[in-house]
């Protein structure tokens, strides 16, 4: 099985399931109910008491969305460099090395080919545990490559976003990834291939302000924080309290910014359904549209 092979490849580094606290029992971060860890994992990291969606490790996300044994990884052939020699309280190069070791992957994203209820997709999943899922040159490149390969292989693209935004340690080059990922999506558009974006907690900054909100269909997970500027930045700017639920998925649904809030348990089915519907167009002859049409 491809997925198992991929899991094996991660060894001997620790898998990202370690992102959840070790031990038999864990506490729901919303209602504080003690949950049996195995149950929480079996419920896709959703609290069975209050329905709170905990942040989900990348491997578990892929296992949840991809049909069994269908995932074939694409990412991993590009590795980040410290192009600016960025040092704050700790050198970026050291931070990178430490988090790479812990995560067992070169950067904050995994992409690959998968089937979702039989629909052929390219699946990209961002890793919030990896430097806050921030987008530097490598995350941008993996997204661009996944979008381009999806177009070549006539696959839909499913993006599961989770990110603090552009990675400041790579400076303006990170900012440019917003444009890079955007132009790389054009091949999908011109071939009429669906791009579905799933915004998970949290999706912010330059990621929200680029590929993550350019989906033909945009879903969000319940209560996910989704914004351009973070709540603290806004509070500091306007010196006022923010309305309840501000910048949460349900709020954005009411404001008309996303297509739906989809509970995790229904996500796979919903993705397959909309991709199937978008690919069921019979009104137009198959062919390509010019970019920009």
């Amino acid at each position, binding site marked *: 099985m491809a997925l198992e092979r991929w899991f094996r490849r991660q060894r001997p580094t620790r898998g990202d399931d370690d992102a959840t606290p070790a031990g038999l029992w864990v506490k729901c971060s919303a209602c504080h109910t003690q949950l049996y860890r195995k149950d929480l994992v079996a419920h896709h990291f959703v609290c069975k008491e209050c329905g709170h969606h905990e942040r989900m490790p990348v491997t578990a996300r892929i296992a949840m969305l991809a049909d069994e044994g269908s995932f074939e990884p694409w990412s*991993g*052939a*590009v*590795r*980040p*460099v410290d*192009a*600016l020699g*960025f*040092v*704050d*309280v700790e050198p970026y190069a050291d931070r990178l090395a430490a988090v790479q070791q812990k995560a067992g992957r070169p950067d904050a994203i995994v992409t690959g080919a998968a089937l979702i209820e039989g629909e052929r997709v390219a699946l990209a999943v961002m890793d919030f545990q990896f430097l806050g899922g921030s987008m*530097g*040159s*490598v995350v*941008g*490149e993996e997204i*661009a490559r996944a979008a381009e390969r999806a177009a070549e292989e006539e696959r839909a693209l499913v993006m599961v976003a989770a990110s603090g935004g*552009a990675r*400041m340690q*790579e*400076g*303006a*080059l*990170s*900012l*440019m*990834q*917003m*444009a*890079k990922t*955007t*132009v790389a*999506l*054009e091949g999908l558009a011109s071939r009429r291939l669906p791009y579905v974006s799933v915004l998970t907690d949290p999706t912010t900054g*330059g990621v*929200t*302000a*680029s*590929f*993550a*909100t*350019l989906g033909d269909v945009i879903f969000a997970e319940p209560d996910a924080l*989704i*914004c*351009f*500027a973070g709540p603290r*930045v*806004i509070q500091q*700017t*306007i010196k*006022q309290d*923010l*309305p309840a639920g*501000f*910048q949460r998925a349900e709020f954005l649904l009411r*404001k008309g*910014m996303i297509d739906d809030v989809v509970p995790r348990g229904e996500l796979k089915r919903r993705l397959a359904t909309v991709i199937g519907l978008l690919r069921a167009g019979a009104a137009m002859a198959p062919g390509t549209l010019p*970019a*920009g049409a």
Partner: protein
Amino acid sequence: MALPFEKPIADLEAKIREMQAYADEQQVDLTEEISLLQQRLERLTRETFAHLTRWQRVLVARAPGRPTALDHVAAFVDGFVELHGDRALGDDPALVAGLGRVDGAGVVVLAQQKGRDTKENIHRNFGMAHPSGYRKAMRMMEMADKFGLAVVALIDTPGAYPGIAAEEQGQAWVIAESIRRMSRLRVPAVAVVVGEGGSGGALAIGVANRVLILENAVYSVISPESCAAIRWRDAAEAPRAAEALKLTSADLLEQGVVDEVVAEPLGGAHKDPAAAVAATAAAVRAALAGLRGLGGDEIVRSRAERFRHMGRMLVDSA
């Protein structure tokens, strides 16, 4: 009003003025002395500006008296006509749009405008656009495509405005949409960072075929203050953050983020605004001329290519 590091320059200038006044008053010839001081002044200014720290460049980029985007527009656009409104929510004075001519050919102008004084700054929201501003920009991009007009975008913003209404109206969505809209332009686009290029709010109108930057302008993924607040947990560390972010024109040229640096007059654009806007005008004209004659497909392809290759990484050959 002098910037902190400009104090020795300002002092010397004052001394020269004083000596000139004394000479005039007392009818004595101090030409030689004054000329010597002026040479010293030029040396001092040259020295100072050749060795500015990155943080000092940030201060120059934000200096009062620095030409604003519309000051530059006045210098290279003939017959500028401002067009208002996004046709949906309102009109955003932080992002000015309009039509005009450059070397006889029609252009669409997009300009992020800071105020020249406090009152105008409040009106302009310090150059921080709301979603309405980006919607207006996109509407003008449509117009540019429809009528075959080149787009000239002048970037000068601390960033897109972080406020409640801005978030509710989809600030992230319009920036993403504007990046995409601009990347699809079938007409040539030239962007010039004239002051502050603040993150996504700047890039939203920065997806151009040629990206220029003024010598003392900066372009960054995050402001030094915000970066310092996050990375050092202290906004006062902004000077160190500016160093780390490598956000000066020379840095950006080296990173391949910009194509060309427009030299500023000695002492910075605020010292000689007329010379600064003239230099920008010449550079924009040359950039537009260089893109003339390209077909729509080629324009889209080469622009996409420019951005597709942004970044530094190691690629495994396997």
